[in-house]
């Protein structure tokens, strides 16, 4: 099938899937489908739950899941490695620590409407990525083993710092941090969504505008250059855009693992490896996946909410184990 046709079909299917998932997600929860009925009766509680909690949550899940999915796909193209993702590269850990430092220093107020917490998360993500990249590059080539190891080590270091900050926090703060570190979409109102979008929209536009270059980059630096790609510029743009958007998301939701790793993987198994298709589709499927996971987290042992990070990590972990076992014959690393 030619690329354009595949692009249109897969995007349409995923948009439909998004709409269905969003509808199900909005209507499920402790206060289930009857919410619509109550809404039409003009019930105030139903009104609050619907507009202040359910809708913002579905939007936040879309923004967060979509961003993590698209960033995973972009990082895999950048590192020429299907195992790269915000989580495995230690970016999630970096952004978490940056955000936590910001929160503890009381910087949430921010400057010019940009939250300092988000900016710190962005800076920490960027530095982590540059560091992991330089450590894993041997003789001009990114070595997979070193890449993953560097990511794991960075995550360990960051969690040590997080625990250190935790240790000096009082009980309430500590509990808040705990919940946040588990990854959660527990927000009220649309403020957080807008704040995140300010970073995510430019980031995603940048990534979507260089998908063709990412494909060419998969043929090696020299061939990509010979085909008209400015390789250095493309690499810098991916670094910048992924840390900006993933950093912003993580500063609100906490680290939500495995979305960026698993989603592009599933899509490549079905749609092939063309980044012009994989990137936008990773956004949509990532959004659907996180919404679905969030719905499960709210309904599984309702009225108790399980942090969504626990759901994504368990689903993603199992999926990846399956992938490892299945692919014993082929080489995925």
């Amino acid at each position, binding site marked *: 099938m*030619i*690329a*354009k046709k595949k*692009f249109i079909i897969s995007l349409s299917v995923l948009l439909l899937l998004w709409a269905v998932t969003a509808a199900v997600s909005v209507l499920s929860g402790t206060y289930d489908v009857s919410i619509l009925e109550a809404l039409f009766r003009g019930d105030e509680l139903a009104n609050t739950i619907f507009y202040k909690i359910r809708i913002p949550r579905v939007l936040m899940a879309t923004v967060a899941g979509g961003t993590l999915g698209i960033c995973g796909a972009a990082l895999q*193209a950048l590192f*020429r*490695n*299907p195992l790269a993702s915000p989580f495995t590269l230690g970016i999630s850990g970096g952004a978490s620590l940056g955000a936590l430092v910001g929160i503890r220093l009381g910087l949430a107020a921010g400057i010019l409407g940009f939250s300092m917490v988000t900016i710190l998360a962005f800076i920490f993500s960027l530095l982590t990525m540059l560091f992991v990249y330089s450590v894993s590059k041997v003789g001009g080539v990114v070595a997979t083993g070193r890449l993953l190891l560097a990511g794991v080590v960075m995550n360990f270091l960051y969690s040590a710092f997080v625990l250190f900050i935790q240790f000096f926090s009082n009980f309430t703060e500590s509990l808040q941090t705990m919940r946040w570190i588990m990854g959660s979409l527990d927000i009220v109102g649309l403020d957080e969504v807008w704040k995140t979008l300010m970073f995510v929209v430019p980031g995603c536009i940048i990534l979507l*505008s260089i998908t*063709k270059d990412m*494909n*060419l980059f*998969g*043929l*090696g630096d*020299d*061939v990509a*250059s*010979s*085909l*008209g*790609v*400015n390789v250095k510029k493309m690499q810098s743009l991916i670094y910048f855009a992924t840390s900006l958007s993933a950093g912003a998301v993580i500063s609100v939701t906490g680290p939500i693992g495995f979305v960026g790793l698993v989603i592009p993987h599933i899509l*490549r198994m079905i749609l*092939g*490896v*063309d980044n*012009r298709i994989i990137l936008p589709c990773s956004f949509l499927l990532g959004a659907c996946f996180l919404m679905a996971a969030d719905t499960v987290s709210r309904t599984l042992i309702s009225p108790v909410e399980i942090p969504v990070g626990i759901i994504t990590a368990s689903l993603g972990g199992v999926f990846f184990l399956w992938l490892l076992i299945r692919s014993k014959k082929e080489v995925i690393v």
Partner: protein
Amino acid sequence: MQTIIECRGVSFSYGAGEILRDINLSLGKGRMFGILGANGAGKSTLLKILMGILKAQRGSVLFNDKPLQGYDRREIAKRIAYIPQDPVFAFPFTVSEVILMGRAPYIGRFEFEREIDLEAAKRAMDTVGISHLKDRLITETSSGERQLASIARALVQEPQVMILDEPATFLDIKHRNEIMNLLRKLREEHGILIIAATHDIFTALFYFDEIIMIKNGSVFANGSSETVINRENLSSLYGIDVTVRREGGKVFIYPGD
């Protein structure tokens, strides 16, 4: 011979080490040039300068009488195609996807391939003889097939020049013959200037119109293969005794006397 690429006093160094020294060359349309030299003589660096990926610190490269640095990347990509020694295929694209990537300089940032691009890819696959591989994953092809796919990818760029780094080094004699004859065909039928680095004397002798010998970063000898491939030049180029014997239209080359 219409000159396409001209090097004037090109020198290049990485840090303190000088890789190329005062290279002067004139490369013309529809010819096939073999750049011969020992490993590390500066062949690959020269190729990268000829296609504008590396900039010469001294001297200049003219492309169609204009400085190569005056063209932007996409303009160069429509005129000069490059095939590396050991092509990277980081992701399992299909063979036809790889070939279509050669159309990149002709397609806008947010555009997909148009009908003419698909036709160009189809023609290139026919020319190269790999139409049967179009849906195969590039990661599941042999090194000969990858080299053919790379040539087809280069061909859809509709280039005036094809630059190849050791195009046949990893291939057995049958596949090497296939690739080199294909390049000769492209030179004849499409008038493409072909420049290929090789460290293999036999390939150079059998298939190229002209040989440029590079030793320690300088052009050491330059001319038709009959004139430059001789005992003196080869012995000096590789630093061992090489015997070249021409008998009844055949050439015998072997180390020692």
